[in-house]
């Protein structure tokens, strides 16, 4: 789809968009706004009318099971929508600029400098045949115009800042010589090399051991406090959400079904899907016996979503009116949910 077509679509008068839920934090600069984003193939939509916003120094968590559209939303936010998919509607603005108005060169310029992304499998994301120090230095050479000599020196400082001991010699290591946690630290160092305004972490700690995960989460919180970056954290683990989020958007089958400040979400989840996710959690700190309150069934495939609310077939509260798709609406200050019964749950 060309830029013009996207504009034509997003300018179309027919569609009513869900307003973007905001945190009551007017002083911080808005870094990323995704407004009514719909992405899909000719046959099915994978992301439907998603609106999210993240401000400087704020961490937004995207939560949901696999296939709910979390990662695709992030890729679209980076201007990296896969070629097989089309952006059918919606606007993404980054620091006030409409991404769809930028050409590929301008986008490439922004990516890596102003926005950066880290993935689950750091080992696979790194180049296996280049030393990690050089890989970090390359970012600085490309985006900041440093000389290789300067960049290599700074790469060592960056490795130290992400808590790698003996950074001088680690910079000379190849990815396979480092542990998974160490590779993830290298990825973070690389992502933070240009002090991006936005950092997207897609299941960045999922593959790590708990102790390493705790270290990486702590590190990311500290680095955020230092740089004031906005962060989007994609995860399916509500424990990680409790650790790092300011605001949470819960996604189910391509849509945001709940959006709230983290404390409100944990204290009074308003969508039955969120409530189900909370209920089936097994936490190491609390004793549990017998059957877990599992959510029966599975996430529907995008080509075969049920009519009305997509969660209807799995929902313990499903009723007649659920045949009508529920809109994402405010339940109380800053807490939004897409359920006809939202607000009725204690």
């Amino acid at each position, binding site marked *: 789809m060309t830029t013009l077509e996207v504009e034509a679509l997003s300018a179309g008068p027919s569609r009513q968009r869900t307003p973007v839920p905001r945190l009551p934090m007017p002083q911080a600069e808005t870094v990323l706004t995704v407004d009514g984003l719909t992405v899909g193939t000719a046959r099915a939509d994978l992301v439907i009318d998603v609106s999210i916003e993240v401000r400087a120094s704020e961490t937004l968590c995207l939560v949901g099971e696999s296939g709910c559209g979390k990662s695709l939303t992030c890729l679209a936010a980076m201007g990296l929508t896969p070629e097989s998919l089309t952006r059918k509607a919606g606007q993404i603005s980054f620091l006030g600029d409409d991404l769809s108005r930028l050409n590929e060169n301008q986008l490439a310029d922004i990516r890596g400098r102003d926005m950066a992304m880290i993935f689950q499998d750091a080992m696979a994301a790194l180049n296996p045949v280049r030393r990690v120090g050089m890989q970090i230095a390359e970012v600085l050479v490309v985006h900041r115009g440093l000389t290789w000599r300067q960049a290599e020196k700074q790469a060592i400082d960056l490795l130290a800042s992400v808590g790698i001991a003996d950074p001088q010699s680690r910079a000379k290591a190849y990815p396979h010589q480092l542990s998974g946690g160490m590779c993830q630290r290298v990825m973070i160092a690389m992502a933070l090399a240009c002090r991006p305004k936005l950092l997207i972490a897609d299941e960045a700690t999922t593959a790590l051991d*708990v*102790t390493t995960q705790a270290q990486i989460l702590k590190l990311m919180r500290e680095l955020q406090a230092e740089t004031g970056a906005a962060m989007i954290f994609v995860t399916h683990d509500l424990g990680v959400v409790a650790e790092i989020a300011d605001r949470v958007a819960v996604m189910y089958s391509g849509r945001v079904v709940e959006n709230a400040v983290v404390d409100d979400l944990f204290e009074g989840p308003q969508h039955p899907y969120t409530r189900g996710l909370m209920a089936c959690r097994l936490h190491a700190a609390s004793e549990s016996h017998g*059957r877990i309150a*599992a959510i029966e069934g599975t996430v529907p495939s995008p080509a075969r979503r049920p009519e009305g609310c997509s969660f209807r077939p799995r929902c313990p509260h499903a009723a007649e009116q659920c045949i009508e798709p529920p809109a994402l609406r405010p339940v109380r200050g800053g807490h939004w949910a897409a359920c006809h019964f939202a607000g009725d749950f204690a």
Partner: protein
Amino acid sequence: MSGRVVLQDIVKVYRSGSGLFRGKTSVRAVDHVDIMLEPGETLGIVGESGSGKSTLGRIAAGIESPTSGHVSLDGRSYARIGSAAWRRERRGVQMIFQNPSKALDPRMTIGAQIGEAMQAHRLSDTQGRKARMEEMLALVGLPGMGGRYSHQLSGGQQQRAVIARALVLEPRVVVCDEAVSALDVSVQAQIINLLNDLKARFGIGYLFISHDLGVVRHISDRIAVMQKGVIVETGRAAEIFANPKHDYTRSLLAAVPAATPAERRARERRIA
């Protein structure tokens, strides 16, 4: 009831790298481990990657032999891997892995795979096997789905099929190596419920290996904590979590993410 697995003084050493310029290196994956799985018990094994918990599981399942040490099921020592006696014994101890799509044959229906498992152990005749396969699939929540191929199933359904294939042999013990780790949380809960139902019904014992402390706490009667090939602490599940004795266990528990943001803030206040 039978199904007691005893591992005595197990050592497993992997040797590697006889390169031209490098000498041989060896890794002691399991280092003098003694554990016993009581009949019908769920013994959880926790530890970080590289702690040797999967190696220990493979030795308990009889698909890998220890460098030294002794393994037995109900007092009978495991036969040499590959021998006819060993093949017969496999029926008693089955194994379930993390990735069900890799554990299933993509070119066979799941019904045929369950039938093949029975045929390999010469159980029943063709008719009997078919009836048993149907019964087993219904039991794991896949009624009438024997004609499906694995790619036609979701991840949770695939793991159910794997469980059906393991349990159709009526094993006394099932070694579950990260059996629910790759599943979505809601599906994970379904599979844990299923494993617990099957345990209550058939009295199967589980050796449940996982890095997920929440899952292990819920499913286990007893827990063994492994670090660098050594079991550093064992005890009743509730006891280990309430009152960890070993420093390593304590550090593992301290690293578990907070249950709520309020809990996280409370922890940060304690540290500050």
